[in-house]
């Protein structure tokens, strides 16, 4: 399946703005599975998307969680806790 990745703030600095990837999940296609797969792709991702890190995620412009299912063509954004206002 095709996924549009987006990164913001400190994650953008570490990983770039994001890219379109082709991902074949070995199990259910969820945010958690994608995050796990991304960690295995690069040492930078392994660090900033690590399980101990506070990372929030949005799927198709809505806040999501590790269990959120992903569809083909989804836009998935990873970013640190938000600090607006």
């Amino acid at each position, binding site marked *: 399946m095709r996924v549009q990745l*987006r990164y*913001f*703030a*400190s994650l*953008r600095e570490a990983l770039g703005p994001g890219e379109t990837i082709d991902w074949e999940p070995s199990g259910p296609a969820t945010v958690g599975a994608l995050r796990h797969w991304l960690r295995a792709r690069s040492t930078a991702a392994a660090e900033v998307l690590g399980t101990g890190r*506070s990372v*929030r995620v*949005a799927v198709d*412009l*809505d*806040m999501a*969680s590790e269990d959120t299912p992903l569809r083909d063509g989804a836009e998935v*954004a990873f*970013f*640190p*806790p*938000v*600090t*607006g*206002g």
Partner: protein
Amino acid sequence: MTAARARIQEADFDPAAEAEALRAGRTDIGALATFTGCVRGAGPRDPVALLTLEHYPGMTERAIESMIDEAQRRFAILGARVVHRVGLLQPGERIVWVGVAGRHRREAFQACEFLMDYLKTQAPFWKKEATPEGERWVDARVADDEALARWGIASGNAGMP
């Protein structure tokens, strides 16, 4: 004409004009509660920091629109509007404005506070501070999660599970 209820912009805004626009042409509004957030400089002895605000275009507007919908459901307000700036900001500059129109003051005050608590922890903005010692991303505060929890909403921002 319906103006966008959530506006993200680099330019400064005029709080009085925003408030008037929210009220324009209506006679059912008995209360107008507004909040203006400004960039707070560092302490008196500390160097003053410059802020850069980043956001997630598209998601930010959508998130704030849905917060306003939620405020309308909860407090039966008559209208609300949010303006948030992004880009480079100096201490003392306006950064965010929330206006709520209601029939009575209670729902207007409450919805205004609710919107700010919600925005602080659920709208995709990030602040970066520049000081003479270098740049750093501002940490999210658990106190902001606690503020949202008062409304019965689990934030999962600073104090993530």
